[in-house]
C-alpha cells in the first residue's frame, strides 16, 4: 500500500520540479530584461538618447500654430515607421524665434528641428554659434542648422483699413514706408504699431525706418545705422507708434474685435490680412464692417519664409533624420500644399496657382498675389544686430506703473509666483531709460515706488518686489486711480503711458467707484493717453470690472494663473 502511494507521488513531485525549473528559467529571462529596460532612466537620472529613436521635436513660431500643429497631427496619423520598425513621430512645441535661438545656443534645446517665422533667425543662430566655436580664420565655418526647406511663405505688409489705405494713396499710387511714417508724424490721431524686433515683421518695419533715416535704399552699414541723424529720424518716427506688442496674432485678433478704433495700420504678414477678411477671426471687423488692405511697401519688404531645418547636433539619430525627411516629404505633398494655400500662405509648390478656386489670396480679401515687386536689402548680421540695438535706444520710451494686489487671498505660492513674474518683467525691459513705478495695494494703497528710470530705481523695485507680503482687503480701483493720477501729472505724451494692474479677487474697499474712475480715464486720456493692461490672476478675479477699466483706456484684459503669470508678464513687457 505504502509502495503504491510512493509510486503515485513520484510523478507528482517530478511534475512540480519540472514546472518550478521552467518557472525559474522564465523569470531569469524576464526580470533582467525588465530591469535593463528601467535602468538608464532611474539609476543616475541622466537622459540617454535612444540611438534608434525616430521621434523629432520641432519648435515652431506662434503665428502659424493652427496650420503647423494641424499638419503635424496629419503626419503622425499616418503612423509611419523606420526600416527598423521604430515609430516616426513629430512633436510640435511653440516658441518665439528668439527663444529658439537662445535655447539652441545654450545647448539645452528640447527640440531637434525648428521652423521660425524667418530665415533671419537661422542665420543669427548659425552666426552666434560659429562665433562660439573658435573657428580658424579663413576656414570653412561649421553650421549648426542643416539645409532648410520651405513649405509656406508670406510677404510682410502694412495692413491698413480700406479708408486709411485710400487716404494714403492706394490703389492709385504705390504706398511705402515713407508715406506711412509721414502720415504718422503729421496726424497725431493716426494710430499704428509694429511688433518688436524679436519678430521678422518688427525687424522689417525697423529696418525700413533705418534705411529712410540714413537716406539710402541699399548698403546700410552699422555706421549709418548708428549715425545721430539716422537715430533722430528713427526716434521721431517711433514716437508715433501707439505701442509695441508680443507678436502679429494678438494684434490681428484685436483688430477683428475693434477695427479702426484700435489701430489705423499695423505691420503683419499678408496671410493674416487674408485670414481676417475671410472671417477667420471672431469680431465685428473680422471680414464684416470694414476691410483690411495689404499694402506692399514701395521701397521693398521682406518675406516671412518659415524655413524648416534640423539642428545638426551630434546626438541626432539616423532614424530622426528619416522622420525629418518623411515630414519634409509630407509637407511637399500636393494636398498638403493645397492646405497651406487655404490657410492663406503662398505654398512652396509653384505648380499650385495662387488663384485656385479656394484660395483666399484674392483682391476681395485685400491682397495682390502679383506683389511684392521688390524687397528691401537685408543687411549683414552685424548690421542687423546694430539696428536691433539702436532700435532699443530709439524706440518710443515708456512710463509704466505696476499695480500689485497683496490682499489676503494672495498669500502663499500665489504671491511667490506673482513676485517671480514681476522680477521677470523688470529683467525683460533691458533699457535703463524706461521709467517704471510700482504701487502695492490691499485694503488701501500701502506702498509706492515712484516712477523713475530703471537706471535709478531698478534695485529699489526689485527689493520692493522681494518684500511683498499678503494681507487685508482689495482696493483695486483706488490703486489704479493713484497710478492714473501720477501718469497724468507726468503729462508726458512723448512716451507710452501705461498701467499694468493685477488682482486676484473682487474690489471691496475703494473710495472711488468704477463709473467715476472710467469717466476720469476717458476724460484724462483726451489729453495724455494712458493705456491699462488689466491682469486677472486666477478665476476669482472680477473680469467685468477689469474689462471696463481696460476698455475705457484702449487697453486689454489678460488672464493669468499661478502657472502662467510669469510668462504673461514676460509677454506684457514686449509692449514697452
Amino acid at each position, binding site marked *: 500500500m505504502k509502495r503504491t502511494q510512493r509510486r503515485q507521488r513520484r510523478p*507528482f513531485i517530478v*511534475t*512540480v520540479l519540472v*514546472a*518550478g525549473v*521552467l*518557472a525559474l528559467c*522564465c*523569470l531569469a529571462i*524576464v*526580470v533582467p*530584461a*525588465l530591469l*535593463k*529596460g*528601467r535602468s*538608464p*532612466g*532611474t539609476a543616475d537620472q541622466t537622459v*540617454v538618447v535612444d*540611438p*534608434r529613436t525616430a521621434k523629432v521635436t520641432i519648435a515652431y513660431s506662434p503665428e502659424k500654430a493652427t496650420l503647423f500643429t494641424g499638419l503635424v497631427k496629419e503626419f503622425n496619423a499616418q503612423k509611419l515607421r523606420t*526600416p*527598423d520598425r521604430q515609430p516616426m513621430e513629430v512633436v510640435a512645441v511653440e516658441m518665439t524665434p528668439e527663444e529658439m535661438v537662445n535655447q539652441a545656443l545654450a545647448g539645452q534645446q528640447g527640440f531637434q528641428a525648428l521652423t521660425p517665422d524667418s*530665415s*533671419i533667425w537661422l*542665420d543669427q543662430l548659425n552666426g552666434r554659434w560659429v562665433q562660439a566655436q573658435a573657428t580658424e580664420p*579663413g*576656414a*570653412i*565655418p*561649421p*553650421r549648426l542648422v*542643416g*539645409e532648410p526647406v*520651405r513649405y509656406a*511663405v508670406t510677404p510682410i505688409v502694412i495692413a491698413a483699413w480700406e479708408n486709411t489705405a485710400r487716404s494714403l494713396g492706394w490703389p492709385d499710387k504705390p504706398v511705402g514706408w515713407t508715406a506711412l511714417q509721414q502720415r504718422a508724424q503729421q496726424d497725431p490721431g493716426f494710430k499704428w504699431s509694429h511688433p518688436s524686433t524679436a519678430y521678422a515683421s518688427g525687424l522689417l518695419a525697423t529696418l525700413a525706418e533705418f534705411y529712410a533715416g540714413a537716406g539710402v*535704399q*541699399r548698403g546700410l552699414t552699422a555706421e549709418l545705422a548708428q549715425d545721430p541723424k539716422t537715430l533722430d529720424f528713427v526716434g521721431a518716427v517711433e514716437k508715433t507708434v501707439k505701442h509695441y506688442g508680443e507678436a502679429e496674432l494678438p494684434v490681428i485678433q484685436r483688430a477683428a474685435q475693434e477695427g479702426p478704433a484700435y489701430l489705423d495700420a499695423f505691420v503683419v504678414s499678408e496671410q493674416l490680412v487674408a485670414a481676417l477678411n475671410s472671417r477667420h477671426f471672431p469680431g465685428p471687423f473680422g471680414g464684416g464692417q470694414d476691410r483690411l488692405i495689404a499694402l506692399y511697401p514701395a521701397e521693398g519688404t521682406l*518675406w516671412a*519664409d518659415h524655413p524648416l531645418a534640423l539642428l545638426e547636433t551630434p546626438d541626432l539619430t*539616423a532614424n530622426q533624420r*528619416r522622420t525629418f525627411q518623411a515630414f519634409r516629404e509630407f509637407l511637399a505633398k500636393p494636398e498638403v500644399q493645397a492646405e497651406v494655400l487655404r490657410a492663406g500662405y*503662398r505654398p512652396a*509648390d*509653384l*505648380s*499650385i*496657382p*495662387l488663384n485656385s478656386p479656394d484660395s483666399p489670396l484674392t483682391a476681395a480679401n485685400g491682397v495682390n498675389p*502679383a506683389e511684392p*515687386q*521688390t*524687397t528691401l*536689402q*537685408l*543687411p*549683414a548680421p*552685424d548690421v*542687423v544686430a546694430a539696428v536691433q540695438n539702436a532700435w532699443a535706444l530709439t524706440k518710443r520710451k515708456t512710463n509704466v506703473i505696476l499695480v500689485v494686489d497683496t490682499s489676503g487671498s494672495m498669500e502663499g505660492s500665489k504671491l511667490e509666483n506673482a513676485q517671480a513674474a514681476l522680477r521677470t518683467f523688470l529683467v525683460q525691459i533691458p533699457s535703463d531709460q524706461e521709467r517704471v513705478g510700482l504701487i502695492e495695494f490691499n485694503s488701501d494703497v500701502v506702498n509706492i515706488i515712484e516712477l523713475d528710470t530703471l537706471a535709478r530705481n531698478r534695485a529699489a523695485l526689485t527689493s520692493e518686489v522681494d518684500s511683498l507680503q499678503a494681507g487685508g482687503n482689495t482696493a483695486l480701483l483706488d490703486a489704479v486711480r493713484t497710478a492714473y493720477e501720477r501718469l497724468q501729472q507726468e503729462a508726458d505724451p512723448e512716451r507710452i503711458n501705461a498701467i499694468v494692474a493685477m488682482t486676484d479677487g473682487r474690489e471691496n474697499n475703494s473710495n472711488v467707484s468704477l463709473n467715476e474712475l472710467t469717466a476720469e480715464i476717458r476724460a484724462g486720456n483726451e489729453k495724455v493717453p494712458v493705456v491699462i493692461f488689466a491682469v486677472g490672476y486666477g478665476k476669482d478675479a472680477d473680469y467685468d470690472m477689469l474689462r471696463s477699466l481696460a476698455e475705457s483706456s484702449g487697453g486689454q484684459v489678460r488672464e493669468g494663473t499661478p502657472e502662467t503669470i510669469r510668462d504673461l508678464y514676460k509677454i506684457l513687457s514686449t509692449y514697452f
Partner: protein
Amino acid sequence: MNLALTIGILVAGVIAIGLSIAFWATRGGRRTQAVFFLILGVVLLVVGAGLGWRSIGGGTQQPLVATPRGPIQVRVLTALPAEPWVREAARRFNEAGNKQDGQPIEVQVIAMDGLTALGKFDRDEFGSLGDKTRDQLSPQELEKLETTFPTAWIPDSRYLVELANAAYKDRLGRDVFLTDGEYRARPTAISLFTWGLYQSRDEVLRKKFGEINWKTIHDAAVAKGGWPELGGDAAWGFFKLVVPNPRRNVGGLAAMIAAAGEYYDRTNISVADVTNPDFQKWLGELMGALTDVSGAGAYTAEDFALFGYSVGDGGQLLESDLLNNMAGIQTRWADPLVIRYPKYVTWFDFPFSVWMGPETTAAEKNAALQFEQFLLSTEIQKLAVQQGLRSVNSDVSVTDGDTLFTRWQKQGVEAVVPRTTRMASPSREVLLALLRWFDLNVGK
C-alpha cells in the same frame, strides 16, 4: 510581433489554468496534472504580463545597443542640385531589392551643400577613426559610426573632392577619395551655370546694353537711379542680382569665379587676381546689388522662383535648377524666365566618390559602387535629363523626347552650348581668398 507574442503567452496561461481547473474538477481529481497546469499557467501569465508592461512603456528606455540591422546601409551625402535625382534613383534602387554578398542594400540620401560637407570633412566632424581600429570602439561608438558615417559623397564639383583629399592628406597621409582605379570618383551628371532673368527685365537690359554678361550686369547693379535709369519700371526698384550665397552654397563661389574669368578675360584665376584692389572694387559694386547679404537665404534658383522678381531680377544660377523652376515661375509670377549662356562657364559634374577609409566596410563600399553603377545606367541617366541635368552618358541625349531642354528652347535653352570657354578648377587658396573677401566686404 512582440504584441502577438505577449498575447499568445497570456492566452496560453489562461488555457493552462483552465485545464488545471478542469483536471481538478474531474471525478477522482487528477491532482498531478492539475498542479502542473496551474504552475505553468501562473508562470505564463507572469511572463506575459511582464512583456506587456514593457511594451506599453513600463520599461522606459530602449536598450542602448541596437539589434543587428538587416540591410547594408549606404549613406550618400548629396549636393543639393542633384539631390532630387539621386533620391529618386535611391528609391528605385531600394525597391529593386539589390543585394551585396547576399544581404539587401538600403541607400539613404543625405542632402548637404558641397561646401558644408567639405567643412565637415575639413573639421573631421563625421568622426573618422584616425589611429583607432573598429575593434577599439565601444559599442556606442561603433553604433554611431555604423549609422552616421557617409559611405559615399556626391559633391557639386570635382574640386571639392580634391580639397577634401588635401585636408585628409595632412591628417592621415593619404587620399580618402580615390582619383583612379575601380573606386575612383566618377562624374554622374553635369549642369552649367547660366544667366536666368525675368523676361521683362531681360528685354530692358538687352535694349540698353545689347548682351547679358558680367560687365553689363555690373553696370546695371551700379545704376544709381535704379530701373528707371536703365529704362525699366520704377516699381521694380533697383537692379537686384541673384547669386548663391557662397557661404551657404558652393554655386556662389562658382559664380564669383566666372565673374573673375570675364573680368580678366581668361580661364585661370590666381590668388593675386582675387586680391587685386581694382577687381575687388568691381566685385564689391556687383555684390552690392544682392538683395540679401545676411546669409539668411542661400539664393538658390528655388528662392528665385519662390520669391520671384521681388528678390531678384536676374542672376547666374545652375541650369538644372532654373529648368526645374521655369514652369513654376510662369504659374506664380506670370513673367517668364529666359536663359542666356555666359562666355566663361563653370559647371558642376557631381562626382560619385566612395569613402576609402576603414570607417566603412568592404561590403558597404561595394554596395556603394553598385549604386554608382545604377546612377550611370541609361535608365537613371534619362531620369537625370528629365530633371534638367545633362547626362554623362553620350548615348543619352538632352533632346530625346519631351525634356526640359526641348520644352524651354523658346526661352533660350540650348541643347549644345557652342561658344563657351570652361573655367579651370580653382585652387583651395583661391577659394578661401574669395570667401575671405566675401566675409569682409559683403557678409559683414
